[in-house]
């Protein structure tokens, strides 16, 4: 008993030392960003940079590239999540119901982007995007096609976990025998049952799209990160503030996701 207590005390000491030291290592640049963006010209502190960042009128007039970037990223997040869900959920359900032989193939394709660096994908996508631009125009929104490929592995894992937790076959057969059409089965039966998996796939995609730089910058399209990078050449203080704001936004998205994930676990019986 006393052995236990000693060990627990020692563990707590170890835990706080390690978390403290590594935490300091990570807090330093974040603190520096705050310090850097609140410097006043004469020495002293000011919130001017942050006021500018949240003043839509000023952003619109003086920093149009930031505005375009934010709008493009907002559009890209929505489009990426929609294409990802519309393509993956029916395919994965259908494969489970009717084509179990294809499951390995679909999994392999979905996990493939993990082994192909984004910079390599850019090289191969350049001719494909020449065609996209020819048919659909030059808009930054079409980057979503490439982003869906980037989020494929993460979305697949999240949705696969969700579909494994329910009995897809029984649910679909029950609905079909009661006269539901396939679209109705998808929309009213499958989707509500895997909604936490859908949510976490969507959150992961949002975080990834908001942080994406490689593809957008090399194709000379606009998105949030490209705009922040461009802004850095002109007004480093405002660029650092924008970068920190984006980081905090992504952090909030992921914290929200950790709560969604927990909600799912509490509904299911304990595993193992």
């Amino acid at each position, binding site marked *: 008993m006393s052995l236990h207590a000693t060990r627990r005390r020692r563990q707590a000491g170890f835990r706080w030392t*390690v978390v403290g030291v590594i935490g300091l290592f990570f807090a330093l640049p974040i603190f520096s960003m705050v310090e850097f963006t609140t410097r006043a010209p004469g020495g002293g502190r000011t919130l001017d940079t942050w006021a500018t960042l949240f003043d839509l009128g000023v952003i619109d007039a003086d920093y149009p590239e930031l505005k375009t970037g934010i709008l493009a990223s907002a559009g890209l997040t929505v489009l990426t999540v929609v294409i990802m869900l519309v393509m993956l959920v029916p395919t994965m359900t259908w494969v489970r119901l009717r084509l179990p032989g294809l499951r390995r193939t679909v999994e392999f394709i979905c996990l493939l982007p993990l082994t192909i660096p984004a910079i390599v994908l850019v090289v191969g996508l350049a001719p494909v995007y020449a065609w996209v631009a020819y048919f659909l125009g030059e808009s930054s929104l079409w980057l979503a096609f490439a982003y869906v490929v980037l989020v494929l592995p993460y979305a697949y894992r999240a949705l696969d976990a969700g579909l494994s937790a329910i009995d897809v076959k029984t649910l679909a057969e029950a609905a079909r025998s009661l006269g539901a059409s396939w679209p109705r089965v998808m929309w009213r039966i499958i989707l509500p049952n895997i909604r936490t998996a859908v949510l976490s796939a969507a959150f992961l995609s949002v975080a990834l799209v908001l942080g994406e730089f490689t593809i957008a910058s090399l194709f000379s399209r606009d998105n949030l990160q490209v705009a922040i990078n461009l802004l850095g050449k002109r007004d480093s203080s405002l660029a650092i503030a924008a970068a920190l704001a984006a980081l905090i936004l992504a952090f909030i998205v992921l914290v929200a996701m950790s709560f969604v994930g927990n909600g799912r676990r509490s509904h299911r019986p304990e595993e193992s």
Partner: protein
Amino acid sequence: MLGVLPFFAYTTIFLGIPTLIVVIGAFLDGSGRASLGNLSALAQPQIVSAFIHSVVLSAVTAVLGAVFGALLTYAVSTARAGGLLRRLVTSLCGVLAQFGGVTLAFAFIATFSAQGFLTLWLQKSGIDLASTPWLYDWDKGLMLVYMYFQIPLMLIVFLPAVEGLRPQWREATESLGGSTWHYWRHVAGPILAPSFIGATLLLFTNAFSAYATAAALISQGSPIIPLQIGGTLSSEVILGQENIGKAMALGMVAIVAVVMTLYVVLERRTTKWLGS
């Protein structure tokens, strides 16, 4: 079969065709004839050194990131599951591991550049950080920046393995008269070893593939291979040389593929012990 057609059509266009373009393009010369010229062009000194820099950078940050990340992971795993500390640390690590890129580069400029917080602060005590442009060197500044996404990624991929350690194993060691050292040396160590090495390999490919941080931080020269490839995509490429970019890309894929194969083999061993 019709139901899965959209998926296969989409992935063919946006994943299959790009991969084929890289693989085939690496073996074509400027006029579209089969050639090994691009591959032999990889022997150019600046490309060879970029490959070496990339491998060294990835290996060093992978090993250091794995060691420090594993320490952090174990420390966090002793906290209560579902507690605030654990939730905050995992979320923060998720952000830093996935979101890095431009944000990290700017965080570093705010900290270590000539006008950065730490530089100015240390100047007061007579230490001059900004005497050399070390922040923009691949083997100093870039290595340090990479640690900021390697350590968090280590926590994310290694935490499930550490959580798989059963308290009973430790109790069994103790009831047989073993010390903490014995437990780590003969029980936990060997069980965690495959997933630790696997996670290190994953960290290697992660650093090896990274482009955004380096691109935002380094504006002169292309010391690492992703920046070299990026350079071939921009306008100032010599005509007939654009397929060298594809050859470099193929080289990257080859290295990643070798590392990932090792990873898959290790993964199989890991699930044997920590599965279920």
